[in-house]
């Protein structure tokens, strides 16, 4: 098989190394003697999928078990797919080039809604029926997890079981159940397996839940149709990041991937409380690693991978209570041997710029900040605790330290946004330009201020889950207005396709009914939707029309406060009352502080889940 692909397909596709599968630290187990076989599928190309830490973690954990093997599958690029279909070869795993149908489990990670068509395409390329109801126990069990699984409903007809929350511990329980049934002498029915799986906390089996609707299309209720399925599926969470298994021998790809470096997670969760941010809600509470754990893992990672860069990853690494000490130790230790340290995300404050100065090895030209909104009023609405003063101090620090480029991330279409807020974005950009003129002097000619405006997409489990998205036309108007205002030699303005954001919103807030449109869109040829060249808006509109789905019902309608939301049976640990109160506060322009620096906000997570805020630094940094 490998030889056939190597001789007939690989010489004729771009980036053939994507399909090589023998990278350093990849795990190749004895196929026949390993009882449980899992294919981990990332529904995008290799370079994107391999940059995902969750894959690395689960690959390591599962392959540490003697009784189980996990191999990788990515969405093949369109040229490769064409060849596969031409010579009628089903999609295979990278490690052993085995067809997907030979695996016991297909496990998908869901990182963004616009990868859903790729998920269907992977199933189809593997020769696996799309609908869970068309698959009996002879087919691989199709499971899914990841942040986007927190609203699992748009994929409910296709997926047998979802794991909600963190997978490090739950995956073992899932494998144990699968192994038990697989080894049962008389064979088994898929329903028996699912019945066992749904007893595992965090596992959601869509077929055990019935959804009923009101005449207006809103949901009446979502209730279990069996006695053994929980009314609410509570997310899984890892209590202690120091003791949980972390991969210290990750795969080192041959070809350059998006994040081509050691990814060392320093903390999980973020309690800054930005009201649009799903990650900030679903990964609570904040749990940090001890500095000793990080230093120990860094040392093993460098030895095992040979990478020359360590990225300290998290949702907001500047918030790590031990960040300074850890950075100093790492820079002292690895600087002399040519290993650099990098910080993926920076807050817009001078403290963060100090950190960036500390680690910069290559004089990078650009620093990125995310003020998200153009005025203090709107930043208070979204609870982005960054002031103009913070930002200007950060930019000044950056210019003084030698950076000549600044990237500013904003969102447009946020609730209550008006013209003044758009003007605020432009004003901030010009203030940065002015500051650059004052400080950079003769180097002003090198100044580049990149303003990037994405469109707000309301997400499940956030305070803004009830908020309608602006219509495509409104978003476009706003983009054009900003483009006019930001015409300046030193400013580059980027924006995202509003049509794509609107479809993202449909699946971010859609229920089970939108699944039909998804399947139709895939049948009409949609895939790689998040790749500009492949996004086919007209096909999506056709798919909605043909399946009788009104996209505006999901994207542009304010959801009622008493409405049953499609994801209400999925429990992040946060009380719905907390989200509602945050929503109310947003419209009053009131902010909520971070529980790491101030009192408990009563979001409910620490009360409901077997985990607590776990900070390792004692006295914490001043709030940004």
């Amino acid at each position, binding site marked *: 098989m*490998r030889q056939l692909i*190597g*001789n007939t397909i*690989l*010489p004729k596709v771009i980036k*053939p*190394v994507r399909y*090589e599968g*023998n*990278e*350093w630290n990849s795990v190749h187990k004895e196929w026949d003697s390993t009882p449980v076989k899992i294919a981990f599928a990332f529904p995008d190309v290799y370079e994107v999928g391999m940059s995902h830490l969750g894959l690395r973690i689960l690959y390591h954990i599962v392959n540490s078990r003697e009784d189980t093997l996990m191999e990788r599958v990515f969405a093949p690029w369109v040229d490769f797919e064409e060849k596969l279909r031409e010579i009628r070869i089903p999609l295979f795993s990278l490690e052993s080039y085995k067809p997907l149908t030979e695996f016991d489990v297909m496990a998908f990670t869901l990182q963004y809604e616009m990868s859903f068509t790729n998920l269907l395409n992977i199933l189809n390329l593997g020769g696996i029926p799309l609908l869970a109801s068309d698959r009996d126990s002879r087919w691989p069990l199709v499971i899914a997890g990841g942040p986007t699984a927190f609203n699992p409903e748009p994929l409910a007809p296709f997926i047998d079981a979802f794991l909600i929350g963190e997978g490090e511990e739950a995956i073992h329980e899932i494998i144990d159940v699968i192994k038990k049934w697989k080894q049962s002498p008389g064979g088994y029915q898929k329903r028996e397996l699912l019945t066992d799986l749904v007893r595992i906390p965090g596992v959601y089996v869509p077929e055990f839940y019935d959804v009923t609707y009101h005449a207006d299309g809103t949901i009446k209720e979502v209730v279990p149709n069996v006695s053994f399925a929980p009314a609410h599926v509570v997310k899984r969470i890892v209590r202690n990041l120091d003791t949980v298994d972390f991969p210290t021998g990750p795969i*080192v790809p*041959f*070809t*350059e991937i998006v994040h081509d470096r050691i990814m060392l997670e320093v903390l999980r969760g973020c309690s800054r409380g930005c009201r649009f941010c799903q990650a900030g809600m679903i990964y609570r509470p904040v749990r940090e690693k001890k500095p000793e754990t990080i230093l120990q893992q860094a040392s093993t990672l*460098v*030895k*095992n*991978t*040979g*990478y*020359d860069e360590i990225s300290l990853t998290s949702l907001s690494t500047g918030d790590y209570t031990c960040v300074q000490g850890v950075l100093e130790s790492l820079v002292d230790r690895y600087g002399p041997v*040519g*290993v650099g340290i990098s910080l993926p995300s920076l807050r817009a404050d001078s403290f963060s710029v100090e950190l960036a100065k500390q680690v910069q*090895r*290559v*004089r990078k030209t650009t620093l990125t900040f995310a003020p998200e909104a153009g005025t203090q009023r709107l930043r208070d609405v979204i609870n982005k605790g960054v002031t103009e003063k913070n930002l200007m101090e950060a930019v000044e620090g950056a210019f003084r330290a030698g950076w000549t480029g600044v990237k500013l991330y904003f969102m447009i279409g946020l609730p209550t946004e008006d013209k003044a807020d758009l003007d605020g974005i432009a004003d901030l950009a010009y203030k940065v330009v002015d500051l650059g003129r004052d400080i950079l002097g003769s180097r002003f000619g090198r100044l580049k201020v990149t303003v990037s405006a994405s469109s707000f997409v309301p997400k499940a489990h956030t305070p803004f889950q009830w908020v309608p998205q602006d219509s495509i036309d409104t978003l476009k108007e706003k983009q054009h207005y900003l483009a006019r205002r930001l015409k300046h030699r030193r400013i580059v303005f980027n924006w995202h396709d509003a049509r794509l954001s609107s479809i993202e919103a449909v699946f971010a807030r859609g229920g089970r009914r939108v699944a039909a449109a998804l399947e139709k869109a895939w049948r009409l040829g949609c895939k790689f939707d998040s790749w500009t060249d492949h996004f086919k808006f007209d096909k999506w509109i056709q798919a909605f029309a043909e399946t009788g789905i009104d996209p505006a019902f999901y994207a542009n309608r304010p959801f009622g406060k008493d409405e049953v939301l499609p994801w209400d049976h999925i429990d992040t640990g946060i009380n719905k009352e907390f989200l509602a109160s945050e929503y109310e506060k947003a419209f009053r322009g009131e902010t909520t502080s971070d529980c790491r620096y101030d009192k408990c906000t009563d979001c409910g997570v620490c009360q409901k889940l077997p985990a607590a805020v776990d900070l390792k630094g004692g006295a914490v940094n001043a709030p940004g």
Partner: protein
Amino acid sequence: MPRARIEFSKGDRVRFLSHLDLMKAMARAIRRAEIPIAFSEGFNPHPKMNFASAVAVGVSSESEYMDIELQHEVDIKEIVGRLARAMPPGLDIKGGRIVPDSTPALMAEVNRAAYHVSAPAGEPVNGEELSAKIAHFLSTPEIVIEKRTKKGLRPKDIRPGITHFRGSVSGERVGFLLGTVLGSDGSVRPEEVVCAFAKQSGLPIDCDSLYIRRISLYTEKDGKQIDPMDVN
């Protein structure tokens, strides 16, 4: 600073690596092997390693060479052993030695490459006819091909770049042994030669599906052939 010269192979399963991929794989293997390689000065220190030649994507190779500069003297057996254990599957260390300071850089020295090229034939090819056509091909004073460059298609005479060229038939495939000039002046690629031959001879050779393996790299100097590991 002492310099180690390493000979390695790029196996079949990693033949789709680009030269950049290969360089990165080597740098990472050297780091894993904890070899005290020297770094360039400056903001962004680079490990000091140099290769004899780039191997193209899709081409495997029996012998490639790289020089690595060391911070201090290390037993070459130690380097070779540690490196061998740190290599990704498909890239294998074949040997190594410490070379004198005066040894020229690999790139400046190595000027010849030999390849084995195998191509599927659409219809059976007669061995004698093949030999005759190759002889005719080589007797052509100028073999001009269209070479794709950044400035568009440019004519290029590849004849001076061919040092030897032989063919044989094996079942439904045709195999070639091919020697070419390597280096900035007039180097030619094996697929250029085989495709030009297929075109000129009219033989049913599918030059879109070539399987190319580099057999050796060496230095041709004063009529002598010198192996890169055989320097004084």
